[in-house]
């Protein structure tokens, strides 16, 4: 079941479009913001709210990188692996994160604190290598900066 807050936010966005199906992606992001990820149940709930089939909502959800259809940790670390970050040291960043967190891309730490994922170019190329943790951008990464960045996210 969607919460009243989620429904209210979805309906505000829905007012921006001439048809309800158009708010599908916004709805998925709103639910994910509240819950961390989008479950099968949420897909069904969103479908009902928008008058669409669950299949149609899921077809959209599985297309987009930022919609998580599997549970994630409390914080999502997205490491840019595109070309400028790669030139400037993505491999070292990935290695360091892998050692610090003990996980590979797509995995979650055993205490549920972090999920690590690759992400395409973050538009931070003059401060490469870069990553995002939740909504925050962290650039000019080296092992110290990575460690101090992660500190903030409990």
């Amino acid at each position, binding site marked *: 079941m969607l919460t009243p807050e989620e429904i209210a936010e979805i309906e505000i966005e829905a007012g921006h479009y001439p048809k309800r199906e158009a708010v599908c992606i916004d709805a998925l992001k709103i639910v994910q913001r509240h819950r961390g990820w989008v479950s099968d149940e949420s897909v069904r709930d969103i479908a009902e709210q928008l008058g*669409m*089939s669950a*299949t149609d909502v899921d*077809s959209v959800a599985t297309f987009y990188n930022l919609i998580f259809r599997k549970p994630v940790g409390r914080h999502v670390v997205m490491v840019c692996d595109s070309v400028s970050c790669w030139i400037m040291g993505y491999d070292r960043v990935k290695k360091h994160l892998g050692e610090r967190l003990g996980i590979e891309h797509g995995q979650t730490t055993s205490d549920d604190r972090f999920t690590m994922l690759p992400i395409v170019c973050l538009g931070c190329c003059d401060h490469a290598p870069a990553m995002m943790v939740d909504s925050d951008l962290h650039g000019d990464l080296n092992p110290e900066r990575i460690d101090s960045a992660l500190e903030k996210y409990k």
Partner: protein
Amino acid sequence: MAIVYVDNKPCEMNPEENLLHGCLSNGFKLPYFCWHPALGSVGACRQCAVKQFKDANDRLGKIVMSCMTPAAEGTRISIADPEVVAFRGGIIEGLMLNHPHDCPVCDEGGECHLQDMTVMTGHDYRRYEFDKRTFRNQDLGPLVNHEMNRCIQCYRCVRYYRDYAGGNDLNAFASRDQVFFGRSEDGVLESEFSGNLVEICPTGVFTDKTLKHHYARKWDQQFAPSVCVHCALGCNTDAGERFGTLRRIVNRYNHEVNGYFLCDRGRFGYEFVNSKVRLRQPVLRGRPTSAALARKHLDQTVAEGRAIGIGSPRTSLEANFALRTLVGADHFYSGIADPEAKLVRLMLEILRQGPMRTPTLREIEECDVVLILGEDLTNVAPRMALAVRQSVRQQPMEAVKKLKIPLWLDHGVRDAMQDAKGPLYIATPYRTRLDDVATATFRAAPDDLARFGFAIAHALDSGAPKSQDWPPADEIARALKAAKKPLVISGTSCASEAVIEAAANVAMAAHAALSFTAPECNSIGAALMGGNSLSAAFQAVRDGYADTVIVLENDLYRRAPSAEVDSMLKAAPHVIVLDHLSNPTTEKAELVLPAGTFAESDGTFISSEGRVQRFFQVSVPQIEVMASWRWLKPDHWQNLDDVLRAMGRALPELEAACDAAPSSTFRIAGAKIPRSPHRESGRTAALVNINISEPKAPDDPDSALSFSMEGTPEQPPAALIPFFWSPSWNSIQAVNTYQKEVGGPLRGGDAGVRLFEPAPRNGQPYFSAVPPAFSPRRCEWLLVPMYHIFGSDELSLAAPGIRELTAKPHVALNSDEFAEGAEVEVICADGTFRLPVTIQREMPAGVAALSVGISPVVGISLPAWGKIARPK
């Protein structure tokens, strides 16, 4: 026509179409995947690439997709240009990257479009050395199998299922080279037209699951042109058998009727032919006997005393006529219950008289304003519902045309059209499966539906009788008046003459086309055959007038309440029954004669369009099973042509049946038409376990078809096409080579003869019997019939897949008294039934809809008043 130069050869092409369509219509072997004549172009697969040149001097040219390029006058292209040949080979290479080496074990093999296109491009060497992506398959129900590893991401399945058929539980998931086509979770595909996926899918992702029960390759099957027996629309099919077992039904293209598509009941209902309850031997007084003895008993019994015959609307004209001839016209009785017979006769009169013309199913797609009065088309005339789904695009397409978007540019048209549709108006007592594309729906009791129709007609023409003032009726009248091709659809589902008459009035006032649905595959034919009423048959037995009752392919328990049938069959001294499956009527018979099904008989049906069509047997049944007309015929009728001639003489209106197909003497360059593809194997080895001598191929005295692969390689006339195949085209795409223009009529004309072409005329009087407004009763409900595509048809219910999909019968109504799903007792004159309730809030007060055709709700006469109460 435009002139397009293909490798410097001038070719005529339709300038309203694209180059791929033009090249294929000119017989060029240009490979393609995502384009389909019924779905248009999207430009996804890139397989149909050609080189386009600016002019005769341009040496370089550029690669374009022929499906996305208009066939404009003066266009110059090359199919053979080496660079584009290499490109097309590269596309196949790309598609084959992830394709498993499944051919030997894949059901599609031998009729696979991917195989054909791979050979056509000449690509034959695997350079890819990495892993292939794999998927977990889904269980999509008993009819369609899912094998995603074979997918080539052509998007045809979702375009057909969603855009064409209106389904919403199949879509594309994920992206890049890992797109998955399926449902959000395992489950039965909800569309009643899901079976067409098996022909739409160019590889073996979606295949016929029922065929897996008894698989055989296309080249190994024996086929025959047939007509679907599961409703009155008369969709053309090809039946495929091997070694005496019916294996499957595939679509037989008929430009005017079914086009490229069937419904699931028609495609998968055939398994009743292989049912365990099939009657395979004559049974005399409970003991199996030989055909000869059974025939002797039949002749003797008929010779002693008076025999009456009860015909059937679900068997052929020939069978009905043979019975009529055997017992005599005066002793021949209609197998249709009186009320329904009256309705069908009324519809017949209207179709004959006109001035309204009844359109073909294809013409329905082109109608721009449609009013459906009283019918849930998807459940009673499914292929017509699919046609109406296309009709709602007509008016929006006019706006698209103004934007100069070619109509074959499928996504361009749909993106411009967005959700615009209609106008389509649906007036029924209960929810229908077409409601999602309706402009407006109107729910009312049958009498009020009739009054609604009368009001619309009066709004169109003040000379038509009035019922009452009704703003929605005015809106519909305005829409019909402004239409280019208006259409009214009605039928027997409300069991109301008034509804049919009202529909006729609307059509007349609007100068619209008029379509009727009918209950069974030969309702129209049986009505034309005539005969005394069914109630008169029962009366004749009660009066002691009949010594022998012969029942032809008709379970009387589905025509009348069981008590009545019980007493009639008990009272009759001799009861002889012909049928395919054992049923309550056959159980009461003294003599049971196993009747050949459509797969084992030849015959003729007349569809609700009034199209006379012939079906041909695909296999020779075992010796004790015969076509009904052969059981009942007089000795001097040797073959089918003799029956047809006699019938034409006795009943001149049915003379057209002779023209439904070429006669048994038809030949092409002296040769018969083979039922089997020329590569069929094992025919002579089939019976080796019984007798090692090579059996002679059975004779077919009734048709121009042969029971073997021997015969002419030429393409036969439409009515005689057993399968579609031509060199390089092993898959169903071979249909392209049988059409003059791809997507158009078959060369030489499509199958079937239309009976009703009324002369347009004025001054036809309107029907004037306007019923009084419906008055709900306080403690009673008006029970109306409700039909189910899976369940209401007798024969298909014996197909395991259809049976699995058949819901339990229920009663739908609008009431606060009962909860959804609660069990209630429905009590009416013809019986008491315990059924679950379905709440439909839009239904009119005092009206309840009862599932019919599914045991135990059979043989009752509706509409009727009844009580609905909680069980005691």
